């Protein structure tokens, strides 16, 4: 293991040129989950590069549109 998730969402973000940020990842991978509702267990399933408390990816943020619950 190299310590990073090989997430298909990350692959997609790279392919589409979407900036690799936590916010962008969450909007794609967990569109129905509010960032405030993410507990430890779910947080641990987020690729390390996007986990809170770790260095976030660089680059501009894109506007995120969340689905209404």
């Amino acid at each position, binding site marked *: *293991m*190299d*310590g*990073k*998730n*090989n*997430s*298909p969402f990350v692959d997609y973000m790279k392919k589409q040129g979407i900036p690799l940020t936590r916010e962008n990842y969450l909007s794609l991978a967990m569109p129905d989950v509010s960032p*405030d509702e*993410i*507990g*430890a*267990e*779910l*947080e*641990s*399933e987020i*690729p*390390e590069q996007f*986990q*809170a*408390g*770790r260095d976030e990816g660089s680059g501009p943020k894109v506007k995120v549109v969340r689905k209404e619950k």
Partner: protein
Amino acid sequence: MIESGNDIQKISAHMGSGHKIRNFYNNIQNPNDPAEDVTVDTHAIAAAHLKPFSSSSLEVNHAFGTTPAKKPANWKPMKTGGTATGINGTDPLYEEAYRRAAKERGILPRQMQSIAWEGVRAMFPAKDKSKGKFNEAYKVWSDHHTGLHDADTARKKIDEITGGGAGSKNYGW
């Protein structure tokens, strides 16, 4: 899984570096594996402590190696073991605890985890836990750690707090 063509390298890469998903995969894929994989989730951690933990509890964050949304003062993010150890958080301590408990009773660690998982969810139902109904359990353990009573007394007190909880009735605790 389907797209991987059963290539374990591809499957492994998608499971990430945490312990839970990988153990869960192993438990399903090969439940009797001699490696004694154990899936440790929030409930398994709560059962190990006999406390009404939620996914925001500090101990749960420690186990998963994550950073809580409300960081206590002096909080320092965990450093992963990386390829040197493969260890993330305190999860492996719980895995080992479940293995030892299972060995004492002659069952598989994953069976011990399943029993404890069901039991603790019955003892601390989510709908009551979220209202803080069982918060007294924290004081019970705090009192134990300051020497006011022994661990068995603490367990009995928590059983009382949970109303003789379904856990103890159904599972013979």
